[in-house]
């Protein structure tokens, strides 16, 4: 960086930044007529694991790309690590880490060569690089495998190496775009341990994921649907929206058939398959009032058992999406 760049950077960051790693206000992105992100607001605090959830095509990646200073928003403002994403995209990029589901490693480079490359990209000094390299090799459990080609590593190791490359320059904010897709449960668990460690060190983590069990690990969540944030808060707060509803799990032989039979039933707010069993939200009714075994029985479906269950995040999101669908 130039001298001038350094002088500008000397503005005391920590003070102006306060506790917030990301502050987004009315952020909007359109592609032609298509509204990808529709005036969203969100805040991510330092040391927080922030889960950003939503179906494919709902605007998750577009939001991340704006926050990383890769594409310009069509409207609204966002400050990332104290820098305006429109005015200072380069400063933003210097101060964030990024890891995508593709683990953007160079497959034909060795572990060491990958680390060295990112070190050069972020301009680490030789001493700093040596220190960070040692730390990352230990963290990723790759000691002794420095000269192995990256393509020969198994997925879990690749994932941890990718995290290592993304954190080489010690960013205080890391974007993780579906970092655990395609990774086995053990490796996922190990990976989340690493994320907790980072958060404990004061690093803010902005994570998108498809896995609901992972979403519950987050400090706070935002659920984006068709470019709009339709729910936000802690996992408990998001689930609380459903607390007064009754959710039943039915044990039926032909779940798909029973699901079809329940369509249009006035007692049923939402019904969907959860694994092999049928999950039904009957709103404020009680199980007896809805009497689903009788309803299904008359349609020819034998119900083996009915059980009331606590709403999960997944129930909450199905509920939110159904609501949105009804509104649209």
């Amino acid at each position: 960086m130039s001298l001038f760049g350094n002088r500008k950077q000397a503005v005391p960051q920590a003070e102006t930044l306060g506790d917030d790693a990301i502050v987004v206000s009315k952020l909007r992105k359109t592609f032609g007529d298509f509204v990808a992100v529709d005036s969203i607001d969100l805040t991510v605090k330092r040391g927080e694991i922030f889960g950003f959830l939503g179906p494919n095509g709902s605007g998750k990646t577009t939001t991340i790309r704006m926050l990383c200073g890769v594409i310009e928003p069509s409207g609204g403002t966002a400050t990332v690590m104290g820098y305006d994403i429109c005015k200072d995209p380069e400063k933003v990029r210097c101060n964030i880490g990024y890891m995508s589901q593709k683990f953007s490693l160079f497959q034909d480079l060795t572990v060491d060569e990958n680390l060295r490359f990112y070190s050069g990209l972020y301009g680490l000094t030789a001493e700093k690089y040596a220190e960070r390299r040692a730390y990352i090799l230990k963290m990723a459990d790759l000691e002794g495998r420095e000269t192995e080609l990256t393509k020969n590593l198994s997925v879990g190791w690749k994932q941890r190496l990718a995290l290592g490359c993304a954190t080489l320059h010690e960013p205080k904010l890391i974007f993780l775009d579906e970092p655990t897709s395609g990774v086995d449960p053990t490796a996922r668990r190990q990976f989340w341990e690493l994320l907790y460690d980072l958060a404990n060190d004061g690093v803010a983590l902005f994570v998108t994921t498809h896995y609901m069990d992972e979403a519950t690990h987050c400090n706070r969540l935002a659920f984006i649907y068709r470019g709009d944030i339709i729910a936000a808060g802690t996992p408990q707060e998001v689930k609380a929206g459903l607390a007064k509803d009754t959710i039943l799990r039915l044990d039926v032989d032909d779940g798909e058939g029973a699901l079809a039979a329940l369509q249009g039933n006035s007692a049923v707010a939402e019904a969907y398959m959860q694994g092999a069993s049928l999950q039904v939200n009957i709103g404020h009714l009680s199980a007896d009032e809805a009497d689903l075994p009788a309803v299904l029985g008359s349609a020819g479906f034998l119900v083996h058992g009915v059980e009331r269950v606590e709403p999960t995040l997944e129930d909450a999101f199905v509920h939110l999406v159904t609501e949105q669908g009804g509104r649209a």
Partner: protein
Amino acid sequence: MNRVLAIARKEFIHITRDRRLLATILLMPLIQLFLFSYALSFNVKNIPTAVLDQDNSTYSRQYVSALQQSDYFTVNRDLSSMSQVNGVFAQNQANVVVVLSPTFGSDIAAGRLGAVQLLIDGSDPNTAQVAQGYAAALSAVFGGRVAISRAQAKGVSTSGAAGITPSIRTWYNPEGRSANYFIPGLIVILLTTVTIQQTALTLVREKENGTYEQLVVSPIRRIELMVGKIAPWALIGALEVIIVSAIGIFVFQIPFRGSVLLFALGSLLYVICTLGLGLIVSARASSVETANQLSALLAVLPGFMLSGFIFPIANLPIVLQAVSYIFPTRYFMVITRTIFLKGGSFAVLWPQFAALAVFAVAIIVLAAASYRERA
């Protein structure tokens, strides 16, 4: 600067890890060099020739031995009748049949023209054309010699009255060696293919692997990425020029008569053009496959077809001649051949240099623009 180096170093590692690519870069120039210099010789020498001497006189035998003594014809068959001619051509025993009329000797002795019929196998037009030219020249020379000897026999002094003898001399390439012609051209072709194709692939590959995503969220600037990506290929291109030139000069004995500096300047301008073209393809192409095909088209069409490498531009259809002007290759081809064979100076070559400079600027502007909007 550090970031440019980081990218360039990484690119070199990619290259050294990719054996097929490495083989292509190192072996292709050598294979092409030997192919074009040996196998594809356009020199016409020792044309297999059959003779049907229907006269068998002193003059006719003199004519045949004149043919034989020239390097261009090798008389390997004596025919006894016209009916054999077809068989000779059909079995590829000769490309040329020389038929001397039964009155050849007596006509010349009487001061008339001796009739010689030349039958040429036209299935190889190039050889046919050259053979025709040689034979005509040879006959003229022979005719001149006969006239002179007859004049001497009559006691006329020939010192002042000698007939006009054509003396053919090919400048710059006196032996007419195709290596002299092809190797400088080959340098242009190699530089074109390597730089266009590889730069075209380099960014697209990164997009396909998802690593591009990672690069754009890093602090690297677009220009740093561009320079870091094309610098290794510029270097490899320069190396290939040097290697092929050296082999050409030292192994194939082709001349290098011009200024090394001027040639380096021309190469630099041209490489800027081709690297820029490669980057444009890279920014536009959606997949490695598209980039491959697009760049091959860009490199082969103007390189082989429209540069004058094999087909002289003047022999192309008018439309293609016009098209050749919009590719920088034809200008660099002239520069390279002129500097190697004629030693041309900047005073001679400035129009080509000016054209290359215009192309270089235009292509870089275009590359930067398409890169900004697509990447």
